[in-house]
């Protein structure tokens, strides 16, 4: 029966249905209309535009619900902190995270978010990396299985040229999450920094299997292979790297002269 109704009419009905259901705050109905429109007109730019606004509206309404119904909850503070971070309001965001920790000192993930905030703010000051490191270490005390915290500690150690710690941190992150491609990459790069070229090959090959189109990995793996005498294998990696970074400009042939 729906097929007998012209597509233009069905599309218009769906769009108006979203608007009406949002006007009366019938969120399940709005979601139904979104689902139907997406199914029948998924690639239509007008439909996508309306859908974006509808999801945005639903998101804002749910956030307001959270603020109204559970303003002191951990989720409310966390959402508020995220919004403040997006706006670059670093100090109020930090206070929100600290508020959570006052009430829930063992809450998982909050020290990590605090550490990430400290590293993200452009005015963090010279001690920001050290303060952030403390937050990541606290996170690991609460949640020793937090691969993210291990990874960032690895990055900080790498940047400080502390290859031993970087190797430990990255390898632990990879152990905690065996699909953490960038942890394997960091592990391999730290081993390269420590001139342990042979040892770097295995984690880098694992990283390559996980994300074969990441040029960072091919460069690092090629370097490890070159330094261990595997020149033919290295050349394959460099060829992949070149193909990934190609700008599709063929260039002039050798010896060609300009007009």
């Amino acid at each position, binding site marked *: 029966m729906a097929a007998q109704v012209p597509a233009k009419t069905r599309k218009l009905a769906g769009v108006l249905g979203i608007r009406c259901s949002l006007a009366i705050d019938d969120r399940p109905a709005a979601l139904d209309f979104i689902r139907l429109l997406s199914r029948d007109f998924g690639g239509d730019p007008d439909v996508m535009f309306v859908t974006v606004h509808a999801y945005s509206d639903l998101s804002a309404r749910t956030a307001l619900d959270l603020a109204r119904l559970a303003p002191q909850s951990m989720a409310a503070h966390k959402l508020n902190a995220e919004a403040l971070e997006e706006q670059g309001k670093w100090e109020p965001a930090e206070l929100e995270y600290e508020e959570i920790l006052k009430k829930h000192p063992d809450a998982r993930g909050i020290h990590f978010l605090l550490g990430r905030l400290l590293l993200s703010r452009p005015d963090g000051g010279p001690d920001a990396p050290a303060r952030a490191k403390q937050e990541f270490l606290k996170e690991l005390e609460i949640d020793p299985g937090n691969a993210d915290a291990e990874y960032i500690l690895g990055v900080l150690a790498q940047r400080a*040229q502390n290859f031993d710690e970087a190797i430990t941190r990255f390898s632990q992150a990879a152990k905690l999450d065996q699909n953490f491609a960038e942890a394997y990459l960091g592990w391999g790069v730290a081993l390269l920094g420590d001139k342990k070229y042979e040892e770097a090959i295995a984690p880098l090959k694992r990283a390559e299997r996980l994300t074969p189109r990441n040029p960072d990995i091919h460069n690092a793996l090629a370097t490890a292979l070159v330094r261990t005498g595997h020149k033919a294998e290295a050349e394959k990696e460099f060829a992949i790297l070149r193909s990934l970074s190609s700008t599709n400009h063929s260039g002039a042939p050798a010896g060609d002269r300009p007009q």
Partner: protein
Amino acid sequence: MDQVRTARLTRRQFVSQMIASALLIPQRPLFALTTATQFPFVVVPPEADGIKWKHTSGKSPEKYLPESSGPGCAFLDYDNDGWMDIYLVNSGKCDFYNPNPPLRNALYRNNRDGTFTEVTEKAGVAAGGYGQGVAVGDYDNDGLPDLYVTQYGKCILYHNNGDGTFTDVTEKAGVAAPGWSSSAVWFDYDNDGLLDLFVCRFVDFSKELNKPCGIHEDGLRHYCIPTVYRPMPSWLFRNNGDGTFTDVSTESGIASQLGKAWGVVATDINNDGLMDLFVSNDTVRNFLFLNRGKGKFEEIGEVAGVAYSADGRARSGMGVDSADYDQDGFMDLFVANLDRQSYSIYRNNHDETFDDDGGETGIAAATYLMSGWGLKFFDFDNDGNLDLFLANGNPDDLIDRIHSQVTYEEPPRLFHGTGKALRNISQQSGPIFEQPISARGLAIGDFNNDGAIDVLIGVNDGAPLLLRNTASAQNHWLGIKLVGTTSNRDAIGARITYQAQDLKQSRMKVGGGSYLSSHDPRMVLGIGKRPRLDWVEIKWPLPGGKAERLTDLPIDRYITIIEGQGKWT
């Protein structure tokens, strides 16, 4: 089902932001200097040196890319009077620019009293095309420095007649290198005692090929990122010894690599006596052309670890240099890049591979937001250790509108060498290191013959900056002019080792380095407060190749050492 995890935490934006924020930490002065007179470099104003010439880029609404890349400059002693003269390159007439009145390059003769007199017209070196850079070399071994001017269009070879004039011999020599040429270097790749010529070629460009790209969020047209233009092969010309050259770009292997070359330095990375070439490319990987002998070069940049950034990406390589900064007997490499790419200092591992020491030396952090062009390793305070001077400036004259932390004009940077490492001393080194400029070329030379190496900076759309070095007064030195007889007369590729009490140092006379520029051919050996030089040993380049050790040397003056004579004059 296993899912690859990359995005949850490690999104590139977050990591790069955290790196950026950490790098923006203000640096504290390492030591305090109390008076302006203690600053190592002082700007010599035009009214004091008499250099009234200014560079004009001809900036247009169409944003033709060559407008952003010049100019180069040179110290040379064109009249062989023992005092460094100055050559400055300007833009000029081409298919997209027709200045009225016409623009010209400038040659300034050193009056030996701190002032200069322009002699361009008499010398006949005004050029007139859209100039980029200059390479100075005595290609015919007559003891007179000749000039090779690179241009967008075609290049010019000026032969020095020895009477204060030059003759344009480009056509006869066969070195016009049409297209867009940038840096060039004289060096003897085949060790026949004659200087050959390598010319960097940038992209395939013309008025018709100019792209209307670069519209950013400010709605204005910016200079294009060169990814939109085709890469081109560079040029290698073999010197035939009769005033002509043969284009050997293809048979040497040079032309097999398509690049977008800005900078070049001729050096010997594996101590085999054959001069290699390190070439920086913009948005294409850098090249390290290893000279395998018999006229052949092998490009080993990737295998050597100098082609890409640490994360495997081609950067915008611009200025380059080579020096044994850590004094381990092997030549290291340096390349300056665009903002948010960091510059790299590549330590030689002695096996034709390199590691980037940008992090350890602090160079990566200090240059993270900068764009580097002219640069040079030299011992500015004559304490015996190599230091590093960097001239900077973003190529996009509208960058300030779209980036809050990057500026068009940028201050130079100075790193002090300790013999094993480098330390950023820009903040306590005086006003010039706080002065934003649009620097491009950089040449080093001792224009007042006091043994302190001065600096000349080419400024895009501005007057050149001559910086007088005041840092060496308390230290002793010996300046040496090397004259090859069997080897090339300029002694490019010679290695000097010297000992003064506990100080033992080694220097190679590289070909070129920096960007679009050419340097004082003399070498100044600093010995700090030590009262004498015990010995100096010169290992002459091939085909000479012999080592000569000299003792009983004077200090605090310049001498000449002629190959094979075993003495100084």
